[in-house]
């Protein structure tokens, strides 16, 4: 141990550190400044960036001893104790953050850049933040915020230089509200149905703590005396475990113990996934493997020690003897029964099969003008949230209760699972979710590591914590989307679709942590998209392999849009028609709604044709084709991709029933008014960056008649929040927001009932006010309808609350004291939103690089609770889909070694790659949900996979090539184009 003196944010810290202690850890653990985040520890993500003597530095690539005697500035030191600085304010105003995990590093990086370059242009700022990864925002609003800050910075420096400047509208406490950035956003067509707190782009309440570095992510939770867990992982894709020798770690100071699958088997119950679904093979997963490992990264033992450093030292000493087996990596071999068995308890790697048929495809094919054949194959991806998985478990032996801090999207179902697997009563477990640095589907289940940590906390009677490192996250967390489709489409001569036959396959990875049909089922369900299709057949096959287990990832159905839209483009190509025309011929019109699809889903309140036309008109389609033609003659390969999509959202209980999956789609909320009139609400959902605290406050405000800023929202703690199904499948807005709105309305009924006693009911009946008595609540005051408007009564919500709690005898006869409403809401089985994406690219045939020149989305997500949040979701979703098309991929070699274990190899797009996205809104309210809300947040992924790929295929059409496999990396595209010559455009 060495003593170091570091001046951080103007305060001197004397720390005792090891030579190897990273500066990032010293700042977080030694100084307690947890605003500096750790996202990779290999220098790539930028989350840990701090200033040293004013210069940006990766604190994970510097030793604490090297900072001895230096001045360090962290995000906590950017602004004074109260409030935010102009840069932080710009991020808040532009919604430049979602989960906020990346934000401190971005703020610090931009602080340094703007200090040197106050006049930085948008392109320079984009470049400056391109060493900071963000998985949520798609960078669009990050750049908008940076531009806004640069404008105000240069305005400030200009006014500082000149004596006689006029006061500027910008600067601290700025009032300028002019939109910056490229987004041409504005409502098209109908305005949102509801005004007031719904549909208002208020800034998010989460942002202050995220921007100032005072948020609480899992690793930020202070737990004195907590032990650290670290997992020993398999270096082999497939191997029998012969022995595990832990004696080598004995005597290492600080090591508490090493535990294996045998220990976990004694303490916990294995995971059995066996819903009664036809064609699904029931499967079981041990808490930790005892007999064999099934992928590189599979955990085989866990070391517990007093520090993470020591735990890793000991883990390196654990000797596991393996007998290496042949891995199953090739899907075709598994289908033909030639591959080694991944799971010996079943007799094949094929764990799900289904054949479905609607209508009479055979007849349609027999009479078709032509059969168009297409193929689509998406590579394996991984979620890569900027905050990796992690948890901290505290066992209270006296009360026999476990508190689990983690970042799950579904606190209550997580608690149910965790308690059952630990053989505890549900009330013995409390799950607390605080700030979460992104999830995208990776934080939906009780992970094996988390179960082990919880069991160890109980066994050792000491708090135990675990934070996954990036290599573990990329090799062993969860993966997704290794799906492919082979499609035959029967068409008429004029491009009308008569019937579709699809063969869908998916590589599920090493374990069934979800039902094996969970994701592919939605692909098949949504494949008909927005088109008329009665005769539809599909075959679905899911196989196990020796790869990271699969899971849903933001838009589990995502490839469906690419499949359908790619098929439409193929029809146009084969028949020599314009793809726009083929869509015209097949697309459902609003007059045909409600429409029951071939798989039995009911579309209503959707506007696919409208968003399609809106997008095309706004884009200038005909003009584009002229430009494309002229450019081709000059050797510039420009292409336009069109993708229309229908996005399933909400997932009510009836959907699960019909899918044969046990479970519920309901959501619960309570809203309470305290005796002082303070309003607090809670819902069962748990945010991972989506801004639910803000949107739930808006929904409650709308239902109750108060200002959103007066509603406190408590999410993520199972002791506080009512039992709900959590955040997934784009359901939080409709199910969560819906439950909150309805609970608030119910509470308002009670408020008005009390108010009638207090102020009388002299309002005009039927005046449109809430209860027909003429009374309503507005901005926390009881108002009375008058002359088509409202007048105050002088009675505040606080007065009603006081009566309700402290003067119960003045309440209407029989009424219970207090003001609280609790409500569970089961939303419709599905609400659908829809969108059209247009993407324009230019392909450089030599380097293979694809530049996105323009990206436009026309979307209809019904009533928007908060348009800024909706747009942010679209930006992030489009970037996620685009990353899959162009850059990302989990790669394995022939032995099953993972080739993409770091952010050097698993390439997340940076701000340099991010398209600018224009969003047009067409808000058609859902007739089935409170306030007309629909879900959204996954459609952007669906649309972008299809649109970006289609744009590339359009651009390279002169080379006679169609890309059917992703990702279309620059080297790969260049290799395919090399040696081909482009056909010159005909006149």
């Amino acid at each position: 141990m060495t003593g170091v003196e570091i001046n951080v944010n103007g305060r001197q810290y004397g720390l005792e550190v090891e030579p190897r202690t990273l500066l990032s850890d010293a700042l977080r653990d030694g100084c307690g400044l947890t605003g500096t985040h750790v996202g990779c520890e290999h220098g790539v993500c930028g989350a840990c960036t701090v200033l040293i003597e004013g210069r940006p530095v990766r604190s994970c690539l510097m030793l604490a001893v090297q900072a001895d005697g230096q001045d360090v500035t962290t995000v906590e030191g950017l602004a004074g104790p109260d409030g935010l600085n102009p840069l932080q304010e710009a991020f808040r105003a532009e919604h430049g953050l979602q989960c906020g995990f990346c934000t401190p590093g971005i703020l610090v990086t931009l602080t340094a850049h703007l200090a040197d370059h106050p006049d930085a242009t948008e392109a320079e700022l984009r470049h400056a933040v391109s060493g900071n990864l963000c998985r949520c925002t798609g960078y669009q609003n990050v750049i908008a915020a940076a531009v806004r800050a640069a404008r105000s910075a240069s305005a400030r420096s200009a006014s500082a230089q000149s004596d006689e400047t006029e006061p500027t509208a910008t600067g601290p406490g700025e009032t300028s509200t002019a939109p910056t950035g490229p987004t041409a956003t504005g409502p098209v067509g109908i305005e949102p149905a509801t005004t007031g707190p719904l549909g208002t782009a208020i800034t998010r309440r989460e942002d202050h703590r995220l921007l100032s570095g005072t948020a609480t992510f899992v690793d930020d939770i202070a737990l004195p005396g907590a032990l650290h867990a670290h997992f020993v992982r398999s270096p082999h894709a497939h191997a029998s475990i012969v022995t595990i020798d832990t004696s080598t770690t004995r005597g290492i100071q600080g090591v508490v113990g090493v535990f294996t699958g045998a220990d976990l088997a004694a303490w916990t119950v294995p995971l059995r996934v066996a819903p009664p679904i036809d064609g699904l093979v029931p499967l079981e997963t041990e808490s930790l493997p005892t007999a064999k490992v099934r992928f590189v990264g599979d955990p085989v033992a866990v070391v517990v020690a007093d520090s993470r450093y020591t735990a890793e030292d000991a883990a390196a000493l654990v000797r596991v003897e393996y007998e290496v087996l042949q891995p199953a990596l090739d899907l075709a071999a598994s289908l033909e029964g030639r591959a080694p068995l991944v799971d010996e308890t079943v007799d094949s790697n094929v764990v799900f099969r289904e054949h479905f048929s609607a209508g009479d495809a055979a007849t349609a094919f027999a009479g078709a003008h032509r059969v168009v054949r297409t193929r689509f194959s998406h590579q394996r991806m991984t979620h890569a949230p900027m905050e990796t998985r992690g948890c901290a478990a505290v066992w209270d032996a006296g009360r026999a209760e476990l508190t689990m801090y983690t970042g799950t999207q579904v606190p209550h179902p997580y608690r149910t699972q965790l308690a059952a697997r630990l053989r505890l009563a549900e009330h013995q477990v409390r799950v607390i979710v605080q700030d979460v640095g992104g999830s995208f589907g990776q934080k939906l289940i009780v992970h094996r590591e988390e179960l082990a940590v919880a069991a160890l906390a109980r066994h050792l009677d000491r708090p135990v914590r675990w934070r996954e490192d990036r290599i573990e996250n990329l090799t062993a967390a969860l993966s997704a989307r290794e799906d492919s489709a082979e499609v035959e489409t029967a068409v008429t001569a004029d491009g009308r679709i008569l019937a579709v036959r699809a063969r869908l396959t998916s590589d599920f990875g090493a374990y069934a942590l979800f039902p094996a049909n969970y994701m592919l089922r939605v692909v098949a369900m949504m494949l008909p998209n927005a088109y008329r299709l009665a005769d539809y057949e599909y075959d679905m096959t899911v196989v196990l392999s020796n790869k990271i287990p699969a899971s849903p990832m933001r838009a589990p159905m995502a490839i469906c849009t690419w499949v359908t839209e790619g098929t439409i483009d193929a029809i146009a190509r084969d028949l020599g028609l314009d793809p726009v025309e083929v869509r015209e011929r097949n697309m459902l019109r609003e007059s045909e709604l409600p429409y029951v699809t071939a798989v039995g889903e009911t579309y209503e309140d959707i506007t696919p044709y409208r968003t399609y036309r809106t997008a095309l008109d706004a884009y200038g389609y005909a003009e584009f084709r002229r430009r494309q033609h002229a450019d081709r003659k000059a050797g510039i390969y420009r292409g336009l991709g069109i993708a229309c999509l229908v996005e399933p959202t909400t997932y009510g209980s009836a959907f699960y029933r019909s899918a044969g999956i046990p479970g519920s789609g309901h959501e619960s909320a309570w809203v309470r008014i305290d005796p002082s009139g303070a309003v607090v609400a809670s819902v069962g959902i748990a945010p991972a960056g989506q801004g639910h605290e803000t949107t739930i406050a808006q929904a409650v405000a709308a239902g109750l008649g108060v200002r959103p800023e007066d509603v406190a929202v408590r999410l993520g703690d199972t002791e506080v929040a009512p039992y709900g199904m959590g955040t997934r499948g784009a359901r939080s807005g409709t199910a969560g927001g819906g439950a909150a709105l309805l609970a608030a309305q119910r509470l308002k009924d009670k408020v008005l009932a009390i108010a009638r006693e207090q102020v009388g009911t002299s309002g005009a009946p039927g005046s449109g006010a809430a209860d027909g008595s003429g009374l309503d609540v507005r901005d926390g005051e009881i108002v009375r309808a008058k002359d088509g408007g409202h007048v105050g009564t002088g009675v505040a919500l606080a007065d009603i609350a006081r009566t309700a709690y402290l003067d119960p005898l003045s309440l209407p006869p029989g009424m219970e004291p207090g003001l609280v409403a609790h409500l569970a809401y089961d939303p419709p089985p599905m609400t659908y939103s829809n969108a059209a994406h247009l993407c324009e690219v230019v392909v450089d045939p030599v380097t293979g690089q694809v530049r996105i020149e323009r990206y436009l989305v026309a979307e209809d997500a019904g009533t928007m609770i908060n348009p800024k949040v909706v747009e942010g979701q679209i930006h992030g979703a489009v970037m996620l889909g685009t990353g899959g098309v162009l850059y990302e991929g989990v790669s394995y070699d022939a032995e099953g070694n993972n080739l993409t274990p770091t952010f050097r190899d698993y390439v997340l797009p940076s701000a340099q790659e991010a398209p600018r996205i224009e969003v047009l809104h067409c808000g058609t309210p859902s007739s089935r949900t409170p306030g007309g809300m629909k879900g959204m947040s996954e459609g952007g992924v669906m649309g972008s996979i299809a649109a970006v790929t289609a744009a590339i295929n359009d651009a390279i059409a002169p080379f006679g090539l169609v890309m059917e496999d992703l990702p279309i990396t620059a080297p790969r595209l260049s290799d395919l184009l090399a040696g081909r010559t482009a056909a010159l455009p005909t006149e």
Partner: protein
Amino acid sequence: MKPAPFDYARPRHLAELLGTLVDGDVLLAGGQSLLADLNERKRSSRRLVDINGIGALQRLDVGPDSVVLGALTRHQTLADSPEVRAAVPVLSCAAARVGHAAVRTRGTLGGSIANADPAAELPGIGVLLGASAQLRSPDSSRRVDVEELLHPRAIGEQEVIVAIELPRMTSRDGWGFREVSRPGAYAFALVTVAATLRLAVDGTVSALRAAVTGAAPAPYALGDAAGELIGREPDQEWFGAVADLLVGRADPVTDLYASAAYRRRLIRHLTHEVLADALQRAREAMS
């Protein structure tokens, strides 16, 4: 992941450094490669000897014919320093392309050369300009071409790169530097091409240097092969001849990021762009 334990020393002077070095020590310069390797436990070391406190490694001397840069010169200094920009603009341009601001704050010229990544920008510039390195060890001192250092085990166990010496470019030298890098936040170069050229009054080429990184186990230069290209008109055909020579010397690999064929095509593509840049600058310098 966290590094395995090590001891740490931070000598204040070159003499102290040379006096303390023993076999198995690992020098810590900017740490932008080394610490990532240590964090991932791909490397470990009994002791890190931090050279950041040694003033003698931080010199920046611009002489009439040459530039001497201490091994600890940061990438950001190479990119920003007006003296370096004036004396070896191609080096500044390349340094600005290394990583991101935070990496450039700490990463060093000596570390980059010692690290010898086949695609790294700065060793390529060393090879382009025929730079030499001054090395010291507890019992020896030598000067070698940077090109010779870029091979495995070229630097001895207890050897320290003290400084790099580069010939100063003149105002008549046109130059170009371009790269195609991987996408994303890491954005390491796949292939870089750099060139300098000078024109005679009749517009023919009187001097030419060119170097490639990322297409062979180590960066390589045109070297003597440039001879046959001198005295010729720098037209498209000439560009092609330069590219042919550079591609001919390539020995690229196929890996996760790109095929060997792609890397070869990049050399050709970048060579044309870089020569066009260099030619334009040379012409501007003449007029």
